[in-house]
């Protein structure tokens, strides 16, 4: 394993300290328990939007803390959900009297830990709601399973709900909006290489020089199938087709297209893939109205990408366009 780190046991704390130094005006960072809070928190009479989960997906979530997006983030150990006390601490710091919306990616660990934190915070008198993001169409959905994973769509939801909260939307409104975004978002990802978890020291799976994994998760979970390497056209088609069929997205729909690097894939390849995706959508009469291209929901140094589509309407578009000041997204 070659990584630019010191002790693998301290990697999350070391990264958070570096992040705090890099963004002194935007963030307050604590390391025990690890939480990242807006420098101006709590914002009175404004719904606190808080997310979190295992580390290793940077900039998700801490890179999205700031005016117009998240009030706080709770980074767990690498690929491991944070514990309820950390989530509680974030709520305590960020809560401004208008309640808290927890944005939770649908993994058993995240759901259980955030659920416990929500119970404890509610018991202490805070109004807490939860939205569970589950946009990954690579996972078959069923009430008898763990359900779909939350992946790239989380970024879009955090941006949109963060804008609504900033504009004074109340907890009920934020929660409904979040559910609406969640219902209209679908994603799928693929990998050319596996990530290496620092405390493990070896890649999470092995891929041959001519293979790729389709339908991977963001924690080094292998995907649903291993297939021979393909062109950008072929790769994008494999991700886009299941996304389009699932919602479904149909002719005339207006969408936001998010082309996301898994961490190790450079911008050049990302733009190639993005161009292919726009072309394929155009062929189907689906109108791309907004785009996000970059490494935003990553899996350490994994090479690969994911595509996310969000069906837009005027309200969602306006919230997407609203100003945002965070380490990773600014406009």
């Amino acid at each position, binding site marked *: 394993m070659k990584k630019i780190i010191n002790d693998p046991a301290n990697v999350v704390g070391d990264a958070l300290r570096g992040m705090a130094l890099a963004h002194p005006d935007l963030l307050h960072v604590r390391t025990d328990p690890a939480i990242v809070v807006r420098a101006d928190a709590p914002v009175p009479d404004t719904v606190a939007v808080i997310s979190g989960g295992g580390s290793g997906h940077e900039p998700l979530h801490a890179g999205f803390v700031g005016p117009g997006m998240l009030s706080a983030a709770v980074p767990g*150990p690498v690929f491991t959900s944070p514990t309820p006390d950390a989530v509680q601490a974030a709520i305590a710091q960020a809560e401004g009297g208008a309640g808290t919306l927890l944005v939770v990616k649908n993994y*058993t660990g995240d759901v259980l*830990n955030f659920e*416990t934190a929500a119970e404890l915070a509610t018991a202490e008198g805070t109004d807490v709601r939860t939205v569970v993001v589950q946009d990954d169409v690579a*996972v078959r959905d069923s009430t008898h399973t763990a359900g779909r*994973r939350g992946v790239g769509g989380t970024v879009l939801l955090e941006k949109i709900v963060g804008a609504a909260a900033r504009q004074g939307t109340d907890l009920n409104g934020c929660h409904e909006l979040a559910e609406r975004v969640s219902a209209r978002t679908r994603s799928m990802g693929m990998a050319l290489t596996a990530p290496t*978890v620092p405390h493990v020291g070896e890649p999470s799976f092995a891929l041959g020089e001519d293979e790729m994994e389709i339908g991977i998760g963001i924690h080094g979970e*292998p995907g649903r199938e291993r297939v021979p390497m393909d062109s950008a056209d072929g790769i994008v088609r494999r991700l886009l087709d299941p996304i389009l069929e699932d919602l479904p997205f149909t002719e005339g729909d207006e969408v936001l297209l998010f082309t996301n690097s898994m961490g190790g894939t450079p911008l050049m390849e990302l733009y190639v893939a993005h161009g292919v995706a726009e072309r394929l959508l155009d062929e189907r009469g689906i109108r791309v109205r907004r785009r996000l291209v970059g490494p935003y929901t990553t899996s350490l140094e994994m090479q690969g990408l994911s595509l996310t589509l969000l069906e837009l309407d005027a309200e969602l578009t306006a919230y997407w366009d609203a100003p945002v000041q965070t380490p990773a997204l600014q406009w």
Partner: protein
Amino acid sequence: MPCTAQDVIAALRAGAETVTEHRDELIRLDRAIGDADHGENMDRGFRAVVAQLDSASPRTPSAVLKLAATTLISSVGGASGPLYGTAFLRAASAAGDVTELDGRAVADALRAGMEGVTARGKAVTGDKTMIDALAPAVEAAKASADSDATAATVLAVAADAARTGAEATEPMVARKGRASYLGERSAGHLDPGARSTALLLAAFADTVRTDR
């Protein structure tokens, strides 16, 4: 012979040792069908439990179990943290305020623990989770307690059943937890949580057996 608070403490310390010893094995199992952190999570959690036990001296089995529960909840994270935490919390409640647990009380605490896991995680046997180790352990413990076995014996049969149960997860296709994302590809690997459950129960049983 029944189980005192000291016995429970010793059992937890033995559990922590086992987890540290098997950290890499649990990581390897989780790497195959999950996210490669189960050994790290359990090791972090049980080290924290040992640190707590070094500084506090709870007086009853229930108080020991409760301390373990809250420590696991605030240090393990992931799916296994809340699940093991809830299991220990429910076991603590079931143990009541007695100073010693007999065979029956051990069996009841185990059942309460398992019910906690089920309540939170909604898994049933065959889903390829820690339930596949816990459920047979609970059944075996009940049968043993029904025939008036000692705490040591009840734990021993429970540990045996858990081991067999964990081994049986290998061919299963996961329906809960992270391994479920793999679909059919999850078959052919032991479930890491079932394995850690079997390891912990074996360590508990060994300690109590050695004690008496």
